[in-house]
């Protein structure tokens, strides 16, 4: 009985020769690109500036500490505005995103040729523009203030929520929908019983996650005049009031920690 082949005829390789060459080439390109870009990046670096960086950090750090604790009384108002921008913006975003998601999902869209590409365009357009850019545009159109911030957050949220939702709709178990259809249910009843229960966990998870992201994003919207705590941050930076800047950082950090905790609690609760 022969258990071991004596020749190399039975040698086995996972990848073909061609595939191995491609992998090798990909590595070569990646590493050369890294070297080239590293050089470009360092061309304009003034090394003597970098040399005293540790000293600069110590200096700035010294001026930033301790935070100006009494300044916190001026921050509650802007913080409340920030939370409102994030929450209202998320709600408006969701209200628009859900129908768009149903129009974009292959299995629920009324027309794959016309409606689906349009819905996808809405999602991509919303996603490709950062909320800070949306805010810049809206401040120019609507003037500075909370409204610009709310709408900027909403516009950015449509794409995020819409994309994750339509992917969830496309991944549902079709057997459940088929069973509901077999009972003689109408189109709306099929949505209500066959599809909605299956995507509900995703819906809540995505919404709360987006709200959490939006709280972080809305803290900087004030930099371009769209209201909230970012306005205070900009004012403090412009006047070189470093202890106030630190105080604002502390407040933002606390808010983000709390919102992250809320979001993870909600996501754990729905299964």
């Amino acid at each position, binding site marked *: 009985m022969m258990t071991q082949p004596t020749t190399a005829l039975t040698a086995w390789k996972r990848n073909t020769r061609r595939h191995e060459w491609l992998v090798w080439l990909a590595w070569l390109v990646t590493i050369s690109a890294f070297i080239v870009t590293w050089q470009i990046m360092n061309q304009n670096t003034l090394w003597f500036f970098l040399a005293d960086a540790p000293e600069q950090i110590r200096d700035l750090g010294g001026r930033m500490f301790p935070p100006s604790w009494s300044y916190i009384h001026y921050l509650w108002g802007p913080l409340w505005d920030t939370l409102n921008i994030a929450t209202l913006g998320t709600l408006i975003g969701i209200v628009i995103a859900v129908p768009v998601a149903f129009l974009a999902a292959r299995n629920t869209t009324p027309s794959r040729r016309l409606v689906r590409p349009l819905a996808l365009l809405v999602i991509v357009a919303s996603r490709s523009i950062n909320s800070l850019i949306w805010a810049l545009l809206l401040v120019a159109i609507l003037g500075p203030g909370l409204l610009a911030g709310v709408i900027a957050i909403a516009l950015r949220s449509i794409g995020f929520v819409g994309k994750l939702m339509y992917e969830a709709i496309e991944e549902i178990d079709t057997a459940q929908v088929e*069973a509901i259809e077999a009972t*003689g*249910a109408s189109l709306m009843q099929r949505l209500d019983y066959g599809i909605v229960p299956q995507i509900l966990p995703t819906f809540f998870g995505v919404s709360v996650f987006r709200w959490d992201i939006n709280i972080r994003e809305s803290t900087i919207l004030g930099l371009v005049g769209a209201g909230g705590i970012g306005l205070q941050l900009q004012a403090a930076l412009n006047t070189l009031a470093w202890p106030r800047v630190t105080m604002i950082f502390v407040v933002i950090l606390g808010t983000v920690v709390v919102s992250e905790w809320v979001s993870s609690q909600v996501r754990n609760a729905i299964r």
Partner: protein
Amino acid sequence: MLRLEQLTKVYKTGDKALTDINLSVEAGQVVGLIGPSGAGKSTLIRCVNRLVEPSAGKIWLGDQELAGLSKSALRRQRRRIGMIFQEYALVERLTVMENVLSGRLGYVPFWRSLTRRYPADDIENAFRFLDRVGLADHADKRADALSGGQRQRVGIARALAQEPDLLLIDEPTASLDPKTSRQIMRLIIELCNERGLPAIINIHDVPLAQAFVNRIIGLNQGRVVFDGAPVDLSDEVLTRIYGEEDWVALRGKPGQENEDVEAPALDAHRLEAAQ
């Protein structure tokens, strides 16, 4: 009760799933549909309620023809046809009661189904059906909290809630262990007899089919190649349906449940869970 005339289904890919199927099922008759994978069993029962659109032919349910119906007329007729699925096809995240009541969707307006305000009669009947399939205490549990056998019982109760004139049953036991399979088959047969309900059951397990149904139809490559009593399933007929195989070696005698010897030990814990 159900009569298929020249029923044909050709898929877009050009695959001929069914060719000129002619058959009728009388009231109270339970038909076992057997055949190899890909013979067209699933396509056949899905053509009856038009989850799959037939390419040609007629489907008569009583005096009503189904193949030519418009969408809304089809919805009304689908209420008369209960369906039970292989993987249960329950809405997993809804409660048992909601699943049973979903059998009434064809009868109630949208706002009632949305707010779960079903007519009192529907709710009373739903409890009755749950009791009949042995799940009276599980009404408020979520469907995904139940065992396989229990879920299939919910599927049966949902089909009953439609007050159907016909049952279409697609591999009801394929995901169940031998003992639960027999219990489910027995329940289905009892219910059909109680109500004089005709049924078509797709089934892979030939001995199980022989033990429970009173007529067997054999399908091969989309054509009926056998139609007769379970006792007439000879080796020659099985070869005609499934192809050449040594049928004697593995086959138990009809009606003799040969897996039962080992089943109780294996399924003891499952049974306990089901109690």
